[in-house]
């Protein structure tokens, strides 16, 4: 039987991990909510953003946290242009085409990364990597605490932007009723591109917050996509609040499952949640019926 202090530490670790999951899942759910597709290129684009953070650090000495605004902006522009030039252009307005295009993009990006960056594992060793905060039995690494705080802050800012700004309102309108939004003069194609850009910007932020504690290889982004997809289903497809809540639930489930059942069996908790939600509440915790 595990000591309660260890379980407490496990819960804290789960919350910290959940912070990163939230950012990845928010991007995924935003793209789903507006474009009504699962972005199969999500993991590959996260990997690209991680390489961007790595090379900013390696070549220019930019700290991953300092790089946040730059990478977020770059990722937004990249996502926007990618939608405008590739996804939007070749989908011909059909959702199933978008699915196939993002799947194709994923394959192209992964292999291009292998060609240009090689298969080697790249890491960032920041000077504060070994710093930590002691809280009972929990040793909370400083980079993970920073990531957690920054992730919450970014989600709050994004939430406010979606609630208050004209673009945010337009995005919500398009998500609710595409045809109606078009009738009141909203440029739906532009909103699609902006939403995709914001989704990828979330990945840019996640990449900056991940790199001080994780590594990047051409396949490393995919490790986060399955869990992000589970979070999106748990919270409700397209639900912003759902993704945030789901991220923390999955983070804690994973942590406690790993502690109590072992690392391999611990992942069962995530799969169980996925199955239970599909069986009992297919719309997710905060999702609404289509």
């Amino acid at each position, binding site marked *: 039987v595990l000591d309660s202090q*260890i379980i407490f530490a496990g819960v804290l670790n789960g919350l910290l991990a959940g912070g990163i999951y939230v950012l990845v899942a928010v991007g995924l759910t935003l793209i789903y909510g507006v474009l009504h597709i699962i972005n199969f290129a999500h993991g590959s684009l996260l990997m690209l953003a991680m390489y961007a953070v790595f090379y900013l650090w390696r070549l220019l000495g930019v700290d991953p946290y300092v790089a946040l605004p730059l990478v977020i902006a770059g990722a937004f522009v990249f996502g926007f242009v990618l939608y405008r030039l590739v996804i939007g252009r070749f989908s011909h307005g059909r959702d199933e085409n978008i699915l196939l295009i993002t799947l194709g993009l994923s394959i192209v990006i992964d292999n291009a990364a292998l060609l240009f960056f090689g298969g080697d594992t790249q890491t960032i*060793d920041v000077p504060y990597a*070994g710093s930590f905060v002691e809280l009972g039995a929990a*040793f909370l*690494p400083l980079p993970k605490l920073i990531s957690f705080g920054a992730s919450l802050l970014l989600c709050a800012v994004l939430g406010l932007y979606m609630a208050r700004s004209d673009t945010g309102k337009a995005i919500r309108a398009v998500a609710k009723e595409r045809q109606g939004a078009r009738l009141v003069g909203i440029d739906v194609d532009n909103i699609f591109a902006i939403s995709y850009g914001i989704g990828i910007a979330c990945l840019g932020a996640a990449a900056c917050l991940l790199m001080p504690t994780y590594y990047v*290889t051409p396949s490393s982004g995919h490790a986060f996509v399955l869990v992000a997809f589970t979070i999106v289903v748990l919270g409700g497809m397209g639900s912003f609040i759902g993704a945030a809540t789901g991220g923390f639930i999955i983070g804690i489930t994973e942590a406690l499952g*790993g502690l109590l059942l072992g690392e391999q069996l611990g992942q069962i908790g995530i799969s169980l949640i996925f199955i239970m939600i599909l069986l009992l509440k297919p719309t997710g915790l905060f999702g609404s019926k289509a």
Partner: protein
Amino acid sequence: MKNDTKNVVSRRGFVAGTTAFTGALAAPAILQAQPAAIKVGLIHPVTGFVAYNGQQGRLGGTMAIEDINKAGGIKSMGGAKLEALLGDSQSKVEVGVAEVEKMNEQGVAAYIGCFQSPVTIAATQAAAKYNTPFLVDVAASDVIVNRGLKNTFRLMPGFGVCVDDGIASLGAINKAANNIAKSAVIVHESGEFGTGTAKLLQTKLPSIGIEAKELIAHDNPTRNFDNIALRIRSLAPDIIMMSNYGNEYMLLARTLYQQKINVAGFYSILGGGFNYKFVKEMPDVSQYMMDVNHWFNPKSAKAQELKKRVEAGGALFTFEVYLGYSAAMLLADSLERAGSADKAKLTDALASSTFKAELMPYGPTKFVNGQNQGAKPGVMQSLKGDIEVIAPEEFASAKAVFPKPKLN
């Protein structure tokens, strides 16, 4: 009389001209006489989650083939060149087997591969159907050479030998530290390589007075090792033993450092991430970590020269490179002695090989059931941002630091 030499062909000129003409006509015949290239299938996971290791293995194999060809090819076969057929197992068993089948259609004389034990087990089995020799450059599972396959040859030691030697060295290191270590936790990847190694360790650790408190398996890839770190803290072992692939090795080491897990030592068996890059890029994390692994002979001039060439090309001199290189050299040596690419003759030549792998601290090869009996691992320790050999003694460049200083 006017002597117009311009249009008259002299006898000497005629002879020279016809000789040149005949020579030109004969040239294709000479070209035809050039022996056909011997096809060698290099199967490595150059994409997928162990892509880096696969690319390194391919680098070693192709460098060796280039060197063999530059040195005149296989002389007993009229200077026949080796031709590398490059295959990507994509880190997947079924793709590795498909590559074997594809290359068989292309007429390979032998295969070299495949880095991952599960892929190698299946690929050697597939090659056995065609009696095609298969040289295992890297793959640790002993199942590979325990199935009685006549076509399979492994130059490097398997995890059985690595565990035996690792246990003996750990026993000696612990004894020198007044047997401070009484318990261990073994963290391993959940595949054939990690699980097989961990089970062997669990049974053999008691022989040196160390109890394996728990075996903790993890998947590939694993996103987060915080839980495992907490689990280890609750078990409070004296030693943490690891057996996993590169990314997970590095991530686990970093997490244990960040979580301030204080133990007497980290001791990995075939730690996939223990290399120059790891110790140079994470000197604080890697400091004092020990690893039982394949290592080149630091006293070999050939190894040092190859190391310089590899590093000059921007790559790291990792074990995949020098084991891939050595496997291709072993194949060339056997082809030379067989004087033929005939599969049966080549298999016999490999089985009776006394090849001296210059890069490795092995001695002449002696294959029993396809396993080179002289293959031995080294024990290394990360010290001050560099890798030092701490055992066996004849190759040691430093003394082991054990127990390691506590983390603050």
